[in-house]
């Protein structure tokens, strides 16, 4: 076996098939998008090579800058609101509450439901006239808090963030729950014998031992938030007046409605780079942690 590992040819041979697949479905399309992003092209006919002009225009385009800011708000809320909730749920459920499996399933349900259905559900919740949210506010006498949640520039973004967070809380919870369950029971028993409370066990044993899973969750949350499209599209189409526009909705509008394939491809490349940079950052964050 040792010899096989040292045989470069064998390694290359084994890697070849997966490399072909990877190249066909990831590397080539990214390469093509990068090439398109250097063109002034309407998607038909011939494109004109214009170098980096699309990128220069990108950073002067107020709509694009708003969309990047909004995407980052999505990512920020995922990390600082969604993940803590997921972690708390995972810790509580794995503690061994009654109906453990039941709760795991219930929290996971939103992940299974189609995003379009979730969008429709939340549209009904937010409806200014007969929506649950406004009806509830009116019922408890908080009439002055009722809003046109998706129709107002001030609340549209946060109103689209909430369903996205809600949908994937269960997903991260399940990851963390599985992680906790895979930690050896001996450790927990030892801490119990030493008289550690649940809080202490969680803070000093469970969470540190869960680090690899947390890294995975964090990566998924950040990258997922930067790429979010479907729910925003269903709920607000990026409106009103770009208030909830994210980079992917803007990109689809640019490419398919405005017929600007070159410019839209530049946005796509930006998102890829953005995700990659943040992914590396997260990796770095966890590495320095390990050293310390």
């Amino acid at each position, binding site marked *: *076996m040792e*010899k*096989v590992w040292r045989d470069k040819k*064998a390694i290359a*041979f*084994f890697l*070849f*098939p997966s490399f*072909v*697949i990877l190249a*066909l479905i990831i590397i080539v399309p990214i390469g093509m998008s990068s090439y398109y992003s250097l063109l002034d092209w*309407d*998607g*038909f*006919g011939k494109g004109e090579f214009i170098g980096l002009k699309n990128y220069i225009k990108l950073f002067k385009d107020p709509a694009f800058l708003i969309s990047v800011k909004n995407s980052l708000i999505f990512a920020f809320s995922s990390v600082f609101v969604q993940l803590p909730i997921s972690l708390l749920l995972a810790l509580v459920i794995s503690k061994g509450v009654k109906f453990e499996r039941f709760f795991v399933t219930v929290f996971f349900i939103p992940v299974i439901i189609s995003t379009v259905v979730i969008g429709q559900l939340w*549209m009904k919740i*937010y*409806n*200014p*006239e007969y929506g649950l949210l406004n009806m509830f506010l009116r019922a408890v006498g908080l009439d002055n808090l009722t809003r*046109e*949640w*998706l*129709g*107002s*520039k001030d609340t*549209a973004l946060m109103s689209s963030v909430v369903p996205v967070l809600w949908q994937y809380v269960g997903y991260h919870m399940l990851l963390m729950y599985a992680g906790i369950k895979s930690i050896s029971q001996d450790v927990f028993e030892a801490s119990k014998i030493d008289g550690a409370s649940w809080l202490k066990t969680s803070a000093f044993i469970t969470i540190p031992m869960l680090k690899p899973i947390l890294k995975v969750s964090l990566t998924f949350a950040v990258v997922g938030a930067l790429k979010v499209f479907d729910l925003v599209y269903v709920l*607000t*189409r990026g*409106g*009103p*007046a*770009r208030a909830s526009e994210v980079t992917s909705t803007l990109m689809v*509008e640019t490419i*398919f*409605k*405005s*017929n*600007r*394939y070159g410019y839209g491809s530049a946005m796509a490349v930006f998102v890829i780079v953005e995700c990659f940079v943040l992914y590396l950052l997260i990796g770095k964050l966890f590495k320095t942690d390990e050293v310390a």
Partner: protein
Amino acid sequence: MKLKGVKVLSALLGLSMLMGTIGCSSPSVKEEKPDSNAQVSSNENSTVAADSKEEVTLNFWHIWGAETDASYASVKKVIADFEAEYPNIKIKEDTTENEAYKTKIKASAAANELPDLFSTWGGGFSKPFIDANRVLPIDEYLNDGTKDKLVGGALSNVTYNDKIYGLTFGLSCGAFFVNEELFATNNIKIPETYTELIDAVKAFKALGITPMSVSGKDVWTIAMYFDAMALKAAGNDGIVSTLTKKGSFKDPEFLNAATKFAELVALGAFPEGAAGLSKDESDIPFLEGKVPMLFNGSWTAGTVYRDDSKVKDKIIPIGFPVFEDGKGNKNEFTGGAVDAIMVNADTEHKEEAILFQKYFCENMARETYLAGAYLPAWKVEVDETNINPVTVDLAKLTSEAEGFTLWWDTLLEGEDTQVYLNTLQELLLGSITPEEFVDKLQTIYE
């Protein structure tokens, strides 16, 4: 020996994986083509106008695939009739929902994978296809009397560079659908001028009734209103010259239209939170008889007679009230014959495709009029007693039309359309002034 075994085994495994990959990734290029020779003899009873008796399959992509669509039954009937009349031609349909279809057809045009025939929209939408030589010009095929069967303006939106690239079948126009009963019971006059419209809006507001319905999320519904208002302010010539970049959005007429639109917004003519409502949601209060006015396309006639509608027999269509200080008059309408059928320039069955194109459009003109989905773009003779009364009213209303001004989102090309729609959404939200609005529109010229 042992190591050698491992090596051989690994090589075999690797090879098999590789073969698997290749097997999977190789695209199946085989396409089933009808065996022409074998079919000839069996087609003895065909009554074909086209010379060839070969069995031909035409691929036809369109948007009328949902049973809820007002044109669904008409399409099914016309295609069935055609196949009965020309048994050697089979129509293979592929339908996609409207918005998704727009994306699909653009992508297919880009990849040069269009079907033999496809439904599309005239004006700016199809211009890129024509510029890229994807569509067959059909001038030479229309001199057999086809042109005389069409109503005026039926071809104006499918004519590019003086050549005709498609056929239309139905006409749509923008109209104010007003709930006669709500006006009558509240003693409010149905408006004919802008001043009367403002009076009506104020009167309804005073009664706590939201006067007009619009969906800010499906932005085109706002454009329905503004297109008509701009037309009343600037007149057809003013609109066409400005939108084809031969004038200026900074002309006082456009500012006039924008100011009046902003006035309606400020008066609360549109429902609260309209910007967050989809078209389906915003239609409901109108269909429940709670909102008296809706300006939208002539297809609304079909919506009014939907099963869940509570306003049947109460709705009449009127033109947008004229502006006392505007250049447009009451016989100018927004809309036109936009839905078109075009033939792929690279089709293998040119004759058959054009045969079907003509047959389909001529018969669809009649069937969709009967179904109340469109006003006919062909001269048709039908018994009007069974047609949706709102559609008949619309036909009467537009019978004196001087002309139709295409909707901006069809007249403008993709990129400019988005600028227009996004800016209009801001005007509806009241986040920009009418002056800023025309300034932003003027950027289309840059």
